[in-house]
């Protein structure tokens, strides 16, 4: 790598000269950081039920389709959504649990599940839909958090197909963004926060759904909290 070392050094030297009040050591830095005011709301105040309801309401405001089911009903719920969408070529992450696929396999003729074991991009692009799990839901903003684990898939998987079914457990839903961050004691190497389907307002501030990401977002909320 042909890196001009002088620039790095020059910039850092100039920063040092410009910041005489910088912390002298790691301890000073940590205490200055700890002293920063954080009086904003960290914890939500809603009941568990109201929290899930708020999440669902926010998702619907984004025009996402939302259905609820019990853990036992999940496979049927997935089948019902696939059947309603009429989509047959479906991709899922490599770690997708087999029970997602059992019922649908014999109820929908022509349905084809493909797990993403390093699928070529073209194949993902040509899939008609994708099903993944999630890491967290943030009710306050209706945000779905993906950390791209084996059940959530690599980033491109939930991006290219036009129809995206996300499975979110009620126990994964928090009320506020800070509550999600306090759950991330180990920050993820990759994360995607999704708040509604892809959208733009670049032409006269008119909100249009589906520019490049999936145009249709379906969320199954699994009521594992009851």
């Amino acid at each position, binding site marked *: 790598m042909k890196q*001009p070392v002088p*620039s790095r050094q*020059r*910039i*850092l030297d*100039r*920063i*040092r000269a*410009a*910041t005489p*009040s*910088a*912390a002298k050591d790691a301890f000073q*830095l940590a205490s*200055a*950081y700890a002293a*920063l*005011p*954080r009086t*904003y*709301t960290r914890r939500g105040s809603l009941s568990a039920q109201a929290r899930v309801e708020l999440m669902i309401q*926010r998702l619907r405001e984004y025009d996402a389709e939302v259905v609820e089911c019990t853990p036992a009903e999940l496979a049927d719920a997935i089948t019902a959504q696939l059947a309603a969408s009429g989509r047959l070529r479906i991709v899922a992450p490599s770690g997708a649990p087999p029970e997602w696929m059992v019922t649908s396999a014999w109820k929908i003729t022509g349905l084809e599940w493909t797990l993403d074991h390093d699928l070529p*991009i073209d194949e993902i692009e040509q899939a008609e839909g994708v099903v993944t799990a999630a890491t967290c839901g*943030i009710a306050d*903003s*209706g945000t779905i958090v993906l950390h*791209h684990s084996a059940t959530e898939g*690599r*980033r*491109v998987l939930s*991006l290219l197909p036009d129809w995206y079914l996300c499975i979110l457990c009620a126990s994964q839903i928090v009320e506020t*963004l*800070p509550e999600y*961050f306090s759950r*991330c004691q180990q*920050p*993820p*190497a*990759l*994360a*995607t*926060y*999704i*708040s*509604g*389907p*892809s*959208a*733009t*307002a*670049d*032409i*006269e*501030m*008119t909100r*249009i759904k*589906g*520019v*490049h*990401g999936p145009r249709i977002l379906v969320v199954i909320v699994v009521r594992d909290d009851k």
Partner: protein
Amino acid sequence: MSHAAPGHVSLDPRFAPPFPQAALQMLRNPQLRKNVAHAIDVIQAKRGKLVAEKADWQELRSAASAIRFHVLDNLGVYLEQFEARCTAAGGHVHWAADAAEARQIILDLLRQENASEVIKIKTMTSAEIQLNPFLQAAGVSVFETDLAEIILQLGEEDPSHIVVPALHINRSQVREIFARTMGLKNLSSDPKELTNAARTYLRKKFLTVPTAISGANFLVAETGTVAIVESEGNGRMCLTLPRTMISLVGIEKVLPRFQDLEVMLQLLARSATGERMNPYTSLWSGVTPGDGPQRFHVVLLDNGRLSILAKTKERQTLKCIRCAACMNTCPVYRQTGGHAYGSVYPGPIGAILTPQLMHMKYAQTLPYASSLCGACYEVCPVKINIPEVLLELRAQVVNQERRQVGRFFDLMYLGLRIANLIFATAWGFHAAQRMGRIGLRFFTRKDGWIHALPSLGAKWTQTRDLRGLPKLTFHRWWATRAKEGK
């Protein structure tokens, strides 16, 4: 950037006309003013509603302001930390002192990749260093992928806003641009159809172009994370499909810890687009095997930022998270739109950032492009006291000007020097008052107002009346009052 296009002003502060001159040109364009006002009304209404529902808005602002100040105070150590973590995660970090160096680093990286094409996520920083024309001249085809940026690129227009860069262009103008450049004769001006045209136009590019360039909204020192917030998904495409990714980032964009995003993300979307959260936020650190680009470069850009860091009052300029709330609320921006500022950073933040990035050598009229009403300070999610910096910069501009030899006989400075002599003594002050009272008596009408003054004074009375002077000065009144023993 198309300097020569008719009806356009340059966005290079070195060549742009002074603000008052450029603004006049914009004020004469009713279509542009209508487009800008409409877009701003929509954003403002949405923002207002969502900020009002956030009970802890002021607490979030205070936290954000404190975090950003803390970063600036300790910028060196946080940048080094970011560099170490990003490198450990498989990324490469480059440092660029100025625009030319950043452009060259990026071009060298593209040459190593044998890249003849590059796709881009919207980045104002790349517009700041005029990257696109440089790469095109070097034989690299650049494809913008943000809808607004496509509109600008295909229409050979310049950005007029930092979040919604094409807000000065309406749907029928977009239709005209797309129909002409994409060869779609039957396109309607329905935003949905226009958006679809862009989707189709870009899909192939995403799938085939192996190199991408982005900016970044935040860097996280603790984890080496880069954060990009967006709406359309073009960012996610660029971040996952190419094999090489280059992110150009101003050195001030770093945050101490991952958790600090909980403050910034809550403020940014609400301030920028009036949403609780933008549709997509992507975070990544370095390279992840099997997911996304396997070669990742960050170019850290100074380009004038350090000269701002060194100054006490001005330093707060660098707290900016580029949400554009200040321009959306600014009464001046609303009338002129963004191009009048002659910079890729328009509006109140542009009025303080641009001249400073130019080391106060260009764009000296921008600190005056404000009524000092303070609306920008009130909405700023990181509490930048923009009016305070505007005043500081005005003082610097005045100090520069009065030292110029050519300005020695400038009427204003001549007048101020004379006033300085007269007002230096109480005797001179009182004498001047007396003469003023006698002089103004001829122009004061029966209603007690002065409606017209001759010569230089006309500059004032052209647009507003002046109240006639009262019978007694305060000093005289006070002296009489004391004598009468009250």
